[in-house]
């Protein structure tokens, strides 16, 4: 354990990086207007979570965390495919990608 701490990057650094990435994703999701940027922010959050998965997998010497990462990547890929299709459909219909304009479901 000592060798791990002394020779390699400490666990907390990974986790802090993951948290920072996640918060960046949230901020991007909340404040960006372009729907594609919003979309990328979601990807960022997913990958932040992936990073902490991998970190703990390394720390506890199990493969479960790494397998989960694959699941998340598969879902993210599928989501990207569906999401981009929706974005294109929206753009064709509205000629805009600003999320504030896409509020027809509102009461």
């Amino acid at each position, binding site marked *: 354990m000592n060798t791990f701490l002394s020779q390699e990057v400490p666990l907390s650094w990974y986790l802090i990086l993951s948290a920072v990435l996640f918060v960046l994703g949230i901020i991007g999701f*909340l404040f960006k207007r372009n729907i594609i940027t919003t979309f990328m922010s979601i990807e960022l959050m997913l990958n932040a979570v992936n990073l902490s998965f991998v970190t703990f997998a390394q720390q506890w010497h199990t493969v479960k965390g790494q397998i989960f990462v694959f699941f998340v990547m598969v879902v993210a890929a599928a989501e990207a495919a569906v999401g981009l299709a929706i974005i294109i459909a929206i753009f064709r219909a509205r000629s805009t990608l600003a999320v504030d304009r896409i509020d027809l479901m509102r009461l």
Partner: protein
Amino acid sequence: MNAHLHLWLIPLMPFAGFLLNGVLGRRMPKWGVTMVALLAPLAAFGVVANAALDVFGSAPTASSLPCVETFGNWINIAALHVDFSFVLDQLSLVMLLVVTGVGFLIHVYSVGYMGDDEGYARYFSFLNLFLFFMSVLVLAGNALVMFIGWEGVGLASYLLIGFYFQKKSAADAGKKAFIVNRIGDVGFLIAMFLLVANFGTLTFTEIATKLGQDPGWTGGVVTVIALCLMLGAAGKSAQLPLYIWLPDAMEGPTPVSALIHAATMVTAGVYMIARMHVLFNHSPFALGVVAVVGAATALFAATIGMAQNDIKRVLAYSTISQLGYMFMACGVAAYSAAIFHLLTHAFFKALLFLAAGTVIHSLGGEQDLRRMGGLWRKLPVTFAVTTVGVLAIAGFFPFAGFYSKDAILYAAFLQGPSGRALWLVGVVTALVTSFYMFRLWIMAFLGKPRGDLATPHESPWSMRGPLVILALLSLGGGWMGVERSAGWINMERFTGFLTPVFGTRTATGSAHLELALSVVAVGVALLGWLVAYSFYREKSTVPAQLAATYPESYKILANKYYVDEIYRAAVVKPLLGVSRYFLEWVVEIGVLGGIAWMLAGGAKFAGAIVQYWQTGNLRSYAAWLAAGAAVVLLFLLVPWATVMAYLAAIHLGLAGH
């Protein structure tokens, strides 16, 4: 041997018929409906007949009865155990032979009678449903299973009275029958509650055992139970004061009147009292009530029957009157006489109704006696069988009614002075009965045709066949009770057959007394015929003169003692008033409506508030989500104990300085 009786088949067959015709009847060809409808009761009758042969074939001591079949436990609460059990003993065997036998004949008759009706399959599915419930009622081994059948036959009766539901009078009559029967059913239910509370069981044999262990147990709660049962029986069997539904029940098709409202269902009350006879035997007061109600109903209904002009209504009042006889017999504890009369009455009253149905059918729906006449030439078979039926109900020797009616009158006569009073009422009723039945017979069949009716024609064989069989039974049905060795009108054999159920009774009469009483009975029947003949033969003006001389009495009779009007004023109108003004305006609109309005208003108000959060802005939702997650994280990650301790330390340190 018992295992081969297969009692469960008896109700199951008609039930299968009901399901088949009820579900698929519209898609099946007519002959298919007919086959299903006829095979179901025939199969049930076959099972019953098989059991009967089994019983009659073996020696009385080695008899297989009573045969109990239990199909599992139904209710199991604390000390109360109710099994789903059927019992076949001598009593239920006789009743089942009537129900399935006469039932089958009436099914056959209905094929001809209802042939042109578009509700053909519906009619037969209801009729089979009735047979199902009736056989459950008869076979029941405890009061609760009997109650299933009891309510079920009420349902079938309601459905069939209102068969022509497009007609308002028919629909109303069905409702009337159903509601009046409910009043009686309350009595039955309370009796069952009391039985559970005091005996801890509803099984007939266990009740008998418990009462048998304590012979001194009379009056009190037993009387209350018996009176409640009597109320139930009075509702089902159309006794005073609950008889009013039966005349209106004639709105149903005539075979229904024959099967349900003459031969079988209305006798369920008599059957129930016979089934519960142990309770009644322990309560002389309740027996007295049964006897008095029966005698009063017999005379009351018979007098109404004198002044009715609708052929089916005359028969309906006559049914009420004959049921009164049966109650009278139960009231003097002559249960076997009651069941004997039930049996013969099923024969001749079914016959009379079916014959009346033939007359109505051939006249194109005419039911008014005043527009009939001279039908004997046109409808010879119907005329012949009606004659047999009239002779049987009037009590002429050697027709069936003679034996059973005399058995009742004889049993009543032996019951001391009060019994003689009952006997006298019975004899007067017999006179009136004979009068109005011959009046019907003369007005319908003799003389010249009065109405300008379509040419009457005799019915198809499917209608005439059952008539002839029932006529033979009405003629010879009484002989089965007679034992030649013991007096010539004695019904020893029938009583002996039912002894295992009712126990032995000590008769103190003599053959001479019996003979004298029967001569009196036949005498009054003859007198009734003579009076009717002199009144209603061709061009007689006697009835009109009588009606003109005593207009008040005639009006009272013709209007059925105004009982319907009295009930309307005393029960129906107040009830309607309460419903209309109190229930509708105060309860419905005020209370219930107010509560509903308040609930709706509250929901609307809450919705208006919550609506503000529903902005539709996706990013504000996401912000709320993130804020929530942040709060949760704050609670989970911050080591609150340490923080608090630190804060406390600072506070103490500050205070210390």
